[in-house]
């Protein structure tokens, strides 16, 4: 019976960063119209929450799908160290040419975490605020680039 059950592990992490929604493909006016106050030239920030969903077999010896210490260290190295207290536009290379919306942030984080060796990354959900969240499950071509 249990072999027919699927277990997923969810873990939440936090980082704080600034961003500005702006694209060189649009005029100043259009940027202002499309992105509203998120286009403020000096940027603004959020306390982001990242929810990581992993699936896999539960090891009978440990009862674990993935050792949390390994997962935490991986996320810390691949995402938190590079995003926390940073400007997403200036400090994260991929966002020099791409608008750092939370949609794109989900895809970028998925890309960074999908090589976790001990479980399969199923989804990334990012809360930009308590009222806005975005979820990505790996089906966008950008998220699957190697």
């Amino acid at each position, binding site marked *: 019976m249990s072999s027919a059950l*699927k277990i997923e*592990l*969810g873990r939440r992490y936090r980082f704080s960063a600034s961003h500005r929604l702006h694209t060189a493909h649009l005029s100043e006016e259009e940027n202002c119209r499309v992105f509203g106050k998120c286009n403020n030239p000096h940027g603004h920030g959020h306390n982001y929450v990242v929810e990581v969903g992993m699936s896999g077999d*539960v090891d009978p010896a*440990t009862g*674990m799908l993935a050792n949390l210490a390994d997962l935490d260290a991986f996320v810390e190295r691949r995402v938190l160290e590079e995003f926390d207290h940073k400007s997403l536009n200036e400090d994260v290379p991929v966002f020099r040419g791409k608008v750092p919306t939370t949609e794109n942030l989900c895809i970028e984080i998925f890309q960074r975490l999908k090589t976790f060796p001990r479980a399969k990354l199923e989804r990334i959900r990012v809360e930009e605020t308590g009222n806005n969240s975005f979820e990505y499950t790996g089906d966008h071509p950008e998220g699957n680039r190697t």
Partner: protein
Amino acid sequence: MVLLTRKIEFAASHLYHNPNLSAEENRRIFGKCNNPHGHGHNYTLEVTVAGEPDPVTGMVLDLKELKEILEREVMQRMDHRHLNYEVPELAGQIPTCENIARVIWQLLEPKITQGKLHRVRLYESPDLFADCYRNGAGPAGKP
């Protein structure tokens, strides 16, 4: 199909220890969760049932009945208990979130006769949870 979710909370203690491993390995793998005297959590359980609302009552299932099933199967078994020593269904297993979620699924699935159990989500803390699904059902939007 409509998904209905009911949430309950219970408090329990546990520890992680595998008698087949050395004391050192237990400490390395399980860290502070290996403390021999145990520790505890306020667990939050979300149980999601899928079904079509009954045309007469408008309900997927009677919430009172689900509440009673959760009380009987989960609260009475696990609330204010030591999960390693007092829950026979977990005997021989490390009481991780993953394993507890699976045991709760196994306890609930046969009892839910209206609608179908869709997901069991067990939070050990606000930042750590495990989901259990019937294989192939998958999270919403991902069959």
